[in-house]
C-alpha cells in the first residue's frame, strides 16, 4: 500500500500540472494536454482501486505541488515533460517491488501510457520522441 500510495502521489502531481497548464496552452498542445489530463485522472482511479482492493487507505491530494515558474509554450511543455519523467521514474522503481502480478501488470500499463505522453511532449519540444530502447524516465 505505501508503494501504491507513492504512485498515487505522482498521479496527483501530474493531474495538478496539466490542470495548471491547459488554460495557458492553445491548439494541438491544449487538445493533447486535455486528453492527457483525463488519462491522469483515470490513473488516479486505477491506483485508488488497486489500493482499495487490498483494503488499504488511499492518500489524499495535497493543496499544491511545486511546478516552478514556467514561461511560454516551451516552458510549459518542459514543465509537463519534467513531471511525466518523474512519474516514469517512480513507476520504474515501484513496479518490481509490487508482489501481486496483476497489480504489477496494471501499474506497467499506466507507466506505458505515461511513456506515450512524454513521447508526444518530446515531439512538441522538437526532441526525439522515442530516444531509447529502454524507458527509464532519465532520457
Amino acid at each position, binding site marked *: 500500500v505505501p508503494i501504491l500510495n507513492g504512485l498515487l502521489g505522482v498521479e496527483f502531481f501530474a493531474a495538478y500540472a496539466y490542470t495548471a497548464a491547459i488554460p495557458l496552452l492553445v491548439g*494541438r498542445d491544449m487538445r493533447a494536454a486535455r486528453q492527457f489530463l483525463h488519462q491522469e485522472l483515470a490513473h488516479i482511479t486505477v491506483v485508488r482501486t488497486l489500493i482499495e482492493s487490498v483494503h488499504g487507505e488511499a492518500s489524499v491530494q495535497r493543496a499544491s505541488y511545486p511546478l516552478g515558474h514556467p514561461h511560454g509554450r516551451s516552458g510549459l511543455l518542459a514543465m509537463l515533460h519534467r513531471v511525466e519523467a518523474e512519474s516514469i521514474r517512480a513507476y520504474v522503481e515501484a*513496479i518490481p517491488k509490487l508482489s501481486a502480478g496483476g497489480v504489477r501488470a*496494471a501499474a506497467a500499463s*499506466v507507466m506505458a501510457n505515461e511513456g506515450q505522453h512524454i513521447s508526444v511532449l518530446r*515531439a512538441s519540444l522538437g526532441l526525439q520522441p522515442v530516444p531509447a*530502447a*529502454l*524507458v527509464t524516465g532519465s532520457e
Partner: protein
Amino acid sequence: MSGWAPHDTRRGFIRGLLAGSAALTATAVAPGQAVAAVRGGAARDSEVLVTLAAVEQVAAFSYRYVIGAARLSPTTASTLRRFLTHELVHVQTLAAALSRLGHAPPAAPKSAVVVDHRLAALGVTEPLGHVHLERQALSLLIGVETAEENAYHRAIGELSSPALVRLAAESVTCDAQHWTALSELAHDGDVLGAVPHALAPVVQGL
C-alpha cells in the same frame, strides 16, 4: 559453576543436541524449499523470456522486411530504422537475460512465411508480402507493437525476478511509444488518436 551437576550437564547436552538436531532438520527443509522456489521461479522466468524473445524477433524481422519492401517517405523510413534498432536492443537484452539463467534464446525466424504464421498467432493477420504502401506498413507495424505490448503485459504479471520485471516495464513503455509515433504518422499527426487510452495496453476489468 554452582547449581550445575554432571547429570544436568549431560541432560542439557542431550536436550541441546535434540534441539540442535531439530533445528538442523528444520533448516535443512527450509533452505531446500527456498532453493526449489527460486529454481521454480527462474525456470518460469526463462519460459516467459523465451516467449518475449520470440515476439521481439518477429517484431525485428517485420521492421526489417517492411523497411526493405514498402515505398516509404524519408521521415517514415528514418523513424522505422530507428525503431528497428530499439527492437534489436530488446532482442539482445532478452538473449543476455536468458543466458544469465543458463538458457539460449529461441532460433530467430528466417523467412517471411514463418513470421506470417507467428504474426497471425499474435493477432496480426496481414501477410508481410501484402505490404507495399506506407499506410499498409504503418498499419502492420502498429499491429506488431500491439502484440508486443500484450506479450509484455502478460509477462510482467508472471515474472518473479524484480530485475526482469523492471526490464520488461522499460521495454513495454518503449513499445507503447513506438505505437504512438507510428499512429501519428499513420493519421497525419492526430495526437488524440495517438494516445487513445489511459492504459497501454488496454486492461480489461480495470
